[in-house]
């Protein structure tokens, strides 16, 4: 046995020796970003095999500060500031998982996941199948996603459908602080690889957080019950969808808003029950329409609930364009009015 070398990332930046934060032990109001931070901390406390990898996640705490203070608390052997290479971040996580670790990779922005795509699709997703269950890949890949923050190119994308089409992966998207906290813990605890999408324009939105594992990450949740239309959303658009439901209520339309939470697999039990009740379906997402998750859900719901449908399900989504420049994103992104327009269409009002 030899003494271990010091990893290259050990930082001597001032301020790193702050007192160790106490993990969340009671209900608190946190921003979504802070809730993920607390969830990561708890997961790391719970299991010494949890390690974090990513660019700038150490001293900086990530460009969104989601990993703030974790380097100080857990050290550079568990909070690993990596060289700038996404394929290697995922690929070394595979090797760590091989050795029994539970790596949590941070992809700095949605658009930067593609250099790591091969390792995700051909390795992370397939190892369990390839080895007939012998090798597990309990890897969590955190991806800040979506637009609405006026960012530059590649900083506002919604690549989730690439992963929901990839067998072997689980995909979730959170919409609020409580889920952010609970589901990051569940994702890390999962023996399957999980893509964990964080809607970046909600990072600063606050919510109550109970320090519990909460509802299973596989379950969809009715965030507002209704009887006329089922409206499916995830990530940042859950808030928009709820606002739309409120507005529609004033116009006499009762919308049931469902936060999908799990994008793969979709919780069709909840979705189908709702559509059987309402007979009308609207799905909304920021990603481009063609090949997006909306089409998949509509096809499946149509197959399973055909006779219950009063009208053709409708999608309110980003257009089939590369994510546009900041000054045009308000056109591209589904907003309250476009969602209501979609609701009007399933209601036969247009």
């Amino acid at each position, binding site marked *: 046995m030899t003494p271990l070398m010091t990893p290259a990332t050990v930082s001597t930046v001032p301020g790193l020796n702050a007192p160790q934060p106490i993990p969340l032990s009671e209900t608190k109001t946190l921003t979504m970003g802070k809730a993920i931070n607390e969830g990561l901390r708890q997961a790391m406390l719970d299991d010494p095999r949890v390690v974090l990898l990513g660019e700038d996640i150490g001293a900086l705490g990530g460009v969104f500060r989601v990993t703030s203070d974790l380097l100080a608390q857990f050290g550079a052997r568990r909070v690993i500031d990596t060289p700038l290479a996404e394929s290697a971040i995922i690929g070394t996580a595979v090797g760590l998982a091989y050795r029994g670790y539970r790596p949590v990779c941070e992809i700095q922005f949605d658009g930067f996941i593609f*250099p790591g795509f091969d390792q995700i699709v051909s390795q992370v997703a397939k190892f369990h199948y390839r080895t007939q269950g012998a090798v597990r890949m309990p890897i969590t890949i955190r991806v800040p996603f979506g637009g609405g923050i006026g960012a530059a190119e590649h900083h506002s994308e919604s690549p989730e459908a690439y992963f929901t089409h990839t067998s072997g992966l689980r995909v979730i998207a959170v919409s609020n602080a409580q889920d952010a906290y609970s589901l990051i813990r569940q994702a890390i605890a999962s023996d399957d690889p999980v893509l964990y999408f964080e809607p970046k324009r909600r990072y600063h939105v606050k919510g109550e957080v109970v320090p519990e594992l909460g509802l299973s990450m596989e379950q969809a949740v009715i965030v507002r019950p209704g009887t006329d239309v089922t409206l499916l959303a995830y990530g940042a658009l859950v808030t928009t969808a709820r606002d739309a439901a409120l507005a529609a209520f004033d116009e006499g339309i009762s919308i049931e808003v469902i936060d999908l939470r799990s994008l793969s697999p979709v919780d069709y039990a909840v979705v189908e029950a709702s559509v059987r009740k309402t007979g009308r379906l609207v799905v909304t997402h920021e990603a481009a329409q063609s090949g997006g998750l909306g089409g998949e859900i509509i096809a499946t719901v149509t197959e399973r609930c055909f006779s219950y449908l009063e009208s053709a399900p409708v999608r309110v989504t980003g257009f089939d364009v590369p994510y546009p420049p900041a000054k045009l994103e308000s056109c591209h992104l589904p907003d309250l009015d476009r969602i209501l327009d979609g609701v009007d269409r399933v209601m036969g009002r247009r």
Partner: protein
Amino acid sequence: MIDFSPQLVQLLSIEGERIPRGDFDPWVEDLDGPALLALYRDMVVVRRIDTEATALQRQGELGLWPPLLGQEAAQIGSARALRRDDFIFPSYRENAVAYCRGVKLTDIVKVWRGNAQSGWDPYTVQMATPAIIIGAQTLHATGWALGAQRDDVDSVAITYFGDGATSEGDVNEAMVFAASFQAPVVFFCQNNQWAISEPVGVQAHRNIADRAPGFGIPSLRIDGNDVIAVTAATRIALDRARTGGGPTFIEAVTYRMGPHTTADDPTRYRDPAELAEWKTRDPLLRLHRLLTSLGEITPEVEAATAALADAAAAELRAGCIGMPDPEPLSVFDHVYATPNATLERQRADYAGYLTSFGAEHDSAEQNRKA
């Protein structure tokens, strides 16, 4: 014979003294007082533009700005060494290079204002627009160079990237291809010591310039804050490429004196003493010293340079603030070069939607945005 050993090449000391060096000097013989003054003027202007753009960002006129503060010599020295028909594949920080290329100041900030995904037509200035996916542009440069090679012309591709970028697979694959095909491409790495919060030591335990030779690409390690060394090295590399010598790698050792971008807070990760130390190596300062000793700096020159810089800043500000917002329906433009039925239908639907809304919608929109 050029010495391609990994010694740091410096031709202009921090104190502003010209350091003679037999193999490099012939390449900068023409850099007399007036020529150096021209480079100095460029550096002053681009620093002023940089400051103004940062101010515009702080005032909400730009969404983001990636400052080049400290990297003026690396960018001006290399850009001014290029021929008009050489083609540049930059990252996102080469605003001084764009300036040298004659890109309009308004066009430089257009992308950071969020008006478009890029600000200019690459073919009018022989310079690609900013590349955000780290390292991807090094392959484009290599491909362009393969094209130049096939066209039997002696134009050269040059690509700019950072120290952090050297870790990406793409940059390494670009070196593999460039070496394999002896492509006329110059790899210009600005090692500004940081990739956002990560010191260069995270990316490499050896000098970055040491990497390329293993791929079969000679490399030069130069003081990137020394505009004379940068000019010499770039000219050497370009000449090799033009004369069939293949690719060259240049590591310009410099320093990012500002934040990574205006969204960054370097106090979270960087020792202020480091910045203080690098301030003594400021690229403008030492050139100013040399020019002073050469008698090129007079009060008139100072005033004229400042005026030039102020004029550029004013032009930038006016152009930035006066930039019209893009039309909503332009969101659908240029996805394809030829019409696409699915997309045209989406455009028509959205146009109908906007019309149906009319004035009512516009005000609702405005309310939400306010």
